[in-house]
């Protein structure tokens, strides 16, 4: 669960809530309010801060005169994203529908996931012929996470059909679309994604006219897009002509380690994640009580100006948000495989069983735990003799670099201050994708993806050389 998704839930119980059109599978309506109501969304922002206690943009004179994204701190940019006034306006209306896919027939789902009725993807469609772009979400994100919605909206506005897919690390994908129910292996995840794409295509090909297929993704989704593209060279179902990677991981292991290290700067490190969170919450509550502001953007600015959180504390918030995503992934996977990792083996969880204790356990487990205690043993069984080093090397772009270097269909966008890249990895990307990469001077990890110039570049990439 990403910060943006937590925000979504948080917004719900506010006073003003934006209208949303319910999309039943197969029920298509000409407009979809979900993408329309920006003013409402602005009103809603207040609540989100309770969990995110987000810091606020340092609106300072830009170091790079040409690039107008305003937030200079990489952690702050990552947490805050783009101020509304710097996003490009949404289309007046958008034709879209939610698809519910039965990816694995006869799959028996545990009762605790009774609400999972299939893989949820979003289709935004044009009523004329156009290229179709498949988008893959980042770690822990679903098909309608705010970044996915933003990309879908912009590409739709530019005349593309769009299919938004959840990340293979999202619980819905783990339960309903992953063959192994164990995410992380880029090759296996690409195969699962490819199967989903084929299924989507078989469902929609009679309703929409498609001239070409493109693919793209952000963060882990960007890295996965590269692996799906390579698989497509063998399978040749889509013959993707363009592949866009936005702020991709060069290596899953190295990037995730860097994100988790952000928690280590707090007293007690990730072992005391509960104490750290409660301390931040107290700070935040005190500040709110003393002030005369509502829980909204203005309040966030005030919190930032008052330097409520130090740089290390803000960094740790990013680590915490990652752990929240990871917790959902570990729990879902363990229940699906009856792996006995965090839930006792053979325990049958019902739909009303309290899950708080499992949450507490999962939030304390890092990616390293997942890798060494769960993921690596699973792969070792499948591929005897696989060493830990081989596994880690397989979790990155290096394992397919020959293909990436030679293929002209790729485009990469990333930021100089994206902290998920280890020293040397940005240079590696620059070298690997020479002439096909654009590096922005700031934005942290994805903070600038919704900035109007960045969105124009995303659309421009898919438009270049004609649709």
């Amino acid at each position, binding site marked *: 669960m990403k910060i943006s998704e937590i925000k979504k839930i948080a917004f719900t119980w506010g006073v*003003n809530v934006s209208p949303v059109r319910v999309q039943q599978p197969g029920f298509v309506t000409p407009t979809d309010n979900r993408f329309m109501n920006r003013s409402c969304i602005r009103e809603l922002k207040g609540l989100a801060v309770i969990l995110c206690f987000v810091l606020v943009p340092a609106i300072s004179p830009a170091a790079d005169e040409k690039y107008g994204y305003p937030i200079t701190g990489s952690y702050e940019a990552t947490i805050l994203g783009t101020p509304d006034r710097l996003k490009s306006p949404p289309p007046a209306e958008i034709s879209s529908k939610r698809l519910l896919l039965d990816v694995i027939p006869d799959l028996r789902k545990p009762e605790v996931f009774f609400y999972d009725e299939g893989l949820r993807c979003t289709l935004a469609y044009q009523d004329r012929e156009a290229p179709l772009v498949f988008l893959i979400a980042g770690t822990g994100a679903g098909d309608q996470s705010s970044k996915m919605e933003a990309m879908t909206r912009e590409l739709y506005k530019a005349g593309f059909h769009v299919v938004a897919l959840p990340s293979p690390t999202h619980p*819905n994908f783990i339960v309903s679309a992953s063959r192994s129910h164990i995410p992380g292996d880029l090759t296996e995840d690409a195969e699962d994604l490819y199967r989903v794409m084929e299924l989507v295509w078989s469902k929609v090909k009679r309703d929409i006219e498609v001239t070409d297929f493109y693919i793209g993704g952000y963060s882990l989704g960007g890295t996965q897009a590269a692996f799906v593209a390579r698989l497509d060279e063998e399978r040749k179902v889509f013959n993707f002509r363009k592949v866009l990677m936005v702020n991709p991981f060069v290596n899953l292991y190295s990037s995730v380690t860097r994100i988790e290290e952000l928690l280590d700067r707090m007293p007690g490190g990730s072992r005391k994640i509960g104490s750290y969170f409660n301390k931040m919450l107290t700070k935040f509550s005190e500040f709110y009580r003393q002030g005369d502001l509502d829980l909204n953007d203005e309040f966030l600015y005030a919190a930032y100006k008052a330097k409520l959180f130090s740089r290390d504390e803000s960094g740790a918030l990013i680590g915490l948000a990652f752990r929240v995503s990871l917790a959902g992934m570990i729990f879902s996977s363990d229940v699906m495989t009856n792996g006995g990792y965090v839930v006792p083996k053979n325990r049958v969880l019902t739909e009303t069983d309290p899950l708080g204790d499992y949450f507490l356990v999962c939030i304390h487990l890092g990616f390293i735990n997942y890798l060494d205690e769960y993921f690596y043993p699973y792969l070792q069984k499948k591929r005897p003799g696989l060493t830990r080093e081989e596994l880690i090397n397989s979790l990155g772009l290096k394992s397919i670099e020959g293909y990436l270097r030679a293929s002209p269909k790729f485009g990469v966008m990333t930021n100089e201050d994206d902290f998920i890249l280890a020293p040397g990895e940005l240079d590696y990307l620059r070298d690997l994708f020479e002439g096909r990469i654009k590096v922005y001077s700031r934005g942290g990890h994805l903070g600038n993806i919704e900035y109007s110039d960045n969105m124009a570049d995303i659309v421009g990439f898919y438009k270049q050389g004609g649709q």
Partner: protein
Amino acid sequence: MPLTKYRVVAVGFVLLYLVFLAGCATAHPAKLQPVEVPAMHSVSEFSDDERFIDLPDPWERFNRNIYNFDYRFDKYVFLPIVSGYEYVTPVFVQKGVSNFYGNIGEVTTLYNSLLQTKGKKFLITLGRFVTNTTVGIGGLFDPASSLGLQKQGEDFGRTLGNWGVPSGPYLVLPLLGPNTLRGTGGVAIDAGVRSEAVNAIDPFKNVDNGSMIMSGITTLQSIDLRHRMKFRYYGSGYPFEYEMVRFLYLKRSELTLKK
């Protein structure tokens, strides 16, 4: 007159709910399960840390039952009706409807601001109500917001809170979702006041089928309420959504109470 209607509807929901509970009770016959093996990691291992996002919930199983009931009610009844409404109604009409009911809701904020002696809130809300009822043509438009009079929102649950009544346990309500025991009392009082006020005015007493019109208005109000709610039960797909929602709801109420 509308009170009898409410009763019929309320009894209907209670019956529906009992049927649902009965369904749950029979759905899980005892089965022989393989023996449980302790998990590699358990909660005792992390007892040296504070609890995370975990707030007291003594009625958790009951609450989870209602949470799941709300999910199913949404899915099979509420949301299909709401999407039908959205399909047949132009967007500007939907906005007008939301504004209209929002304007009626200002009355609740008015007397509750008064009871809590929140003068600023009372005046802003009074300004909104007068402006929107007159210039906004009976509340169909919301010119007050563009004049800088932002919607405030108060209810009797918050009034009780400000009077020092403790919040009581977390309580998930059928159809209405997350709340607390205190908030539930507040919801009941505010609803009672509203229906008494409507009875006293009884705008349709001289009209044929007046009670039909009144129940139509009440039904549309519920549809509008759900239409404005972005939330979807289990919409996040996150396995700990219940815990997250509980935390966010309780923390938010606690934080904003004094404002």
